[in-house]
């Protein structure tokens, strides 16, 4: 029987997901890994309770060359297929995206057609937004970081008081 050899980026990602920083978030209900189909991973992130909001939002991460390169994530609909097919994921429409000052800007649909989060640790959002890291480096990506940096920021936004549901 042949054993599939994982590329270094996938191997490191799996080590990070099994590690304490990720697992402590799972235990607290902050996020959970739903599925992986390398170089994609589907992660659900918990949101504050709002009468018009879901319990979780789903991000489809593209993780090529992780963690040397930052992750990039697309907000998608809840998965319905088994096994998960990353190519079949439907983009989360504007009316079902989280609203609120900070989180609304992160999930904006009028930039990159809404396929990427507008935050400083997203690979697609970093170029052209160097000013973000001049203001502060708390959320800036570098290869010493792991996926929980991205998840912590999105979770924080989805649990801010200004998050209004969808």
């Amino acid at each position, binding site marked *: 029987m042949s054993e599939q050899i994982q590329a270094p980026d996938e191997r490191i990602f799996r080590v990070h997901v099994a590690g304490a920083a990720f697992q402590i978030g799972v235990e607290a209900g902050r996020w959970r890994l739903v599925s992986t189909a390398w170089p994609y991973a589907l992660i659900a992130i918990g949101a504050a309770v709002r009468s018009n909001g879901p319990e979780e939002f789903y991000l489809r991460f593209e993780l090529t060359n992780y963690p040397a390169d930052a992750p990039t994530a697309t907000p998608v609909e809840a998965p319905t297929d088994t096994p998960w097919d990353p190519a079949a994921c439907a983009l989360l429409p504007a009316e079902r995206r989280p609203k609120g000052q900070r989180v609304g800007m992160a999930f904006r649909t009028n930039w990159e057609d809404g396929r990427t989060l507008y935050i400083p640790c997203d690979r697609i959002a970093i170029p052209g937004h160097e*000013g*973000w890291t001049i203001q502060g480096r708390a959320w800036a990506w570098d290869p010493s970081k792991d996926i929980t940096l991205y998840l912590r920021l999105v979770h924080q936004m989805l649990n801010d008081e200004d998050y209004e549901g969808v």
Partner: protein
Amino acid sequence: MEIFLVIGRETRLIVVDEGDLVEVLLEGCEPDAEVWLEETDEPLGRKITVVEAGIKHRGKVHVSRCRHIEVAVRYNGEDKRRSFRPATPIARVYQWAAGPEGFDLPAAERPKHTLLIGEVEPDPGDHVGSFAVDCAVLFSLVPKQRFEG
């Protein structure tokens, strides 16, 4: 059973037996280090089992040699000080710093600010003792960063 063991800024996920003594969690730590449950006033006894100590499967405990953390928070050039137990969540420290005993931010401003230490924005669930050096720590109270433009 698995336990999240917080030592400084590092969190480890370790496996112990239910009958293991609390002192097992201190292997390799400084001799005067103690194990703390969140929001408790006294460290756990070393000679009781982890289950007797109330540690749950995948529960979080903090290891620190500090019985108190002297916390200073700086805002607009002014410092406020107060001590906390090492396993106090950052959310509680923030509540104090932004509240009436701290800088008394207007209610509308409290959700818009955060604590910062160096280039790190601690999570609400992080323990204050994780950021202390010699049992003391200085945070800045700053507006949350907005990503626009």
